Structures are given as C-alpha cells and as structure tokens.
C-alpha cells in the first residue's frame, strides 16, 4: 500500500506533480483533485490515526481535512508541497475532533454490510485484527504512533518522517524502535508498566 508518490522525492513515474494537480483543481478539474486525494490519503490518514487512535474518526478527519483543503486550495502558497500543507490541516482537524470529544467508538455499519457473504469471514477477521491494533496503538505516545504509522503503514523513509515532524532522523528511528517494542508488548497482552513517550 505504498502511496503513489512521496512528497519531496524524485519519482520516475509519469504521474503529474502536485503543483500541476493543484493548478488543475483550481481550474475546476475534479479528476485532478481525486488524484491528489488518492496520492495523499495515506499520509493524512496516518497523521489523523496517530492523533485520534480510531480508524473511523481518522477517516472522518481525513474527509473533513480534504474538503477544507479543497475550499482553501488557493491559499496553498507552495503547491509543490501540497501534502505537507494538507497534513497540517488534517492534524488540526483531528485535534479539534479530539478536543470536542466527538470520538466515535462504533464500527461503521457499512463495513459489515458492504462485503458479500464470501468475504464476510475475511472482513470480520480483518476488523478484529484492526480493533486489536487500535487498542495496542493506544498505549503509544502520539509521536510514536505517527512515526510508526508513517513508517510501517506508509513506507515513509526516516528522512521524510523527520522532515514532516520536525525532528531528527535519529529521533525518528528511536521513536520507531520504542513504538514497535511497546506495540508488540501490548499485542501480546502484557501489561505495560511504562507508557510514557521516550
């Protein structure tokens, strides 16, 4: 599930640059905006999930963040760095949602009803795994969660994570190491004595 292209990295794919997609979106090209959404959903989702810890809430924050970004796209001063700008919006959206304590705990119904009978077992199994991961992620500090999600879910290199979070590469590696250790402990059902960020 690697994103189509990482911001700030050279890409050999013929995919249009973010700046071009932003310009096309501003000109009313919905397809260009859809490409931006697909390209940057993963990073935005990782950021939102790191803040909120619940998939459904992270998806809501992403949804609202993208809609807000579209509404203020003309204010994006560096269209080439659309991803970073978007993640700032999504992070604020997630923090606001957290502050309002509008955290939704229930699994959306569509997730259970959308799949056909043949896939039902797999869907339930996947949902159960996701719930266990959500619970385990809750023991991590937000920064650890963000580093872990960006690295292990989005395949971001440490250099990119460090730039995005404003930390050093060494610190990013350290956060990842601690996050994995604590996540495994949590997943194995062992009670963690220390849940402070390191």
């Amino acid at each position, binding site marked *: 599930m690697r994103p189509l292209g990482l911001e700030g990295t050279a890409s050999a794919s013929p995919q249009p640059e973010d700046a071009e997609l932003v310009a096309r979106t501003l000109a009313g090209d919905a397809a260009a905006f859809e490409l931006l959404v697909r390209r940057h959903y*993963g990073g935005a989702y990782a950021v939102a999930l790191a803040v909120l810890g619940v998939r459904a809430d992270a998806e809501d924050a992403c949804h609202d963040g993208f809609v807000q970004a579209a*509404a203020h796209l003309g204010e994006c001063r560096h269209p080439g760095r659309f991803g970073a700008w978007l993640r700032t919006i999504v992070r604020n959206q997630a923090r606001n949602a957290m502050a309002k304590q509008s955290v939704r705990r229930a699994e959306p119904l569509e997730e259970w009803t959308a799949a056909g009978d043949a896939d039902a077992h797999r869907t339930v199994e996947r949902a159960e795994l996701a719930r266990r991961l959500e619970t385990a992620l809750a023991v991590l500090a937000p920064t650890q969660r963000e580093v872990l999600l960006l690295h292990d*879910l989005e395949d971001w290199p440490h250099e990119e994570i460090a730039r995005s979070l404003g930390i050093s590469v060494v610190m990013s590696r350290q956060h990842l190491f601690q996050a994995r250790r604590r996540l495994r402990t949590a997943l194995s059902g062992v009670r963690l004595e220390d849940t402070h960020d390191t």
Partner: protein
Amino acid sequence: MTRDRVDLSPLDPRGDPPRFDRLVRAIVQDAHVDAQRRSTATAILVELARWTRPALAAAAVVAIAAAGTLMYPRPQPAPRDAGLDEAGIPVAIAEWARTGGHPSALELVAAFRAVAPGDTAGR
C-alpha cells in the same frame, strides 16, 4: 529494520479497495458541493454589490426630495385666542378683531346667527 516491521495493514482503509473508492468519491463529491455552495454565496454577494450603486442613488434622490420638503415650513393655522373663545365671541368676529378687518353689517349678523341660530329664530 524491515524484518521488525509491524503489519499494520488491517488499519489501512486502502486494504478494502471498493470501500476506499467510496471514501475518495465522498471526499470529491463533498468538496464539489462545498465549492458550488461557496460559488453561489459569492454570486449573491456580487449581485448585491452590483445593486449597491443604483440603490444608493435612489436613496440620495429620496433624501434630497425629503430635505427640500422639510426646508419649506408648511403654513400654520392662526392660533386661536383662548380668551375670546371662552367669552363666547364667534370665531369670525375674533378674526376681524385680530386682523383689524371691517365687516359689513350683513357679515356681522351672519356671524352672530352662526353662534346662536335658535335665539334669532324665535324672535
């Protein structure tokens, strides 16, 4: 580092492509609706702004007309003399007294008849 990777794929919404497509479509759709709503609001503001100048001009015309009317005082009715009224003096006679008029005899008779027509009818 790669071998230590935690499998977080169950958390990834893109793991269920049809559902992810629905998420993306919902975002694009809502962004489009939001843009249309903002466009409509802007159009209304533009239309209002377009009417501002004619509305101000009309208001200025009304204001000038009102000012012209207010500048010329309407003729006020002559104040009535309360003392003459209480004494039973007819209004016409009081007016002659105030302005120094010289009524004819017939006018004087008519003025007094107007005050007390019954008195003269019986005589």
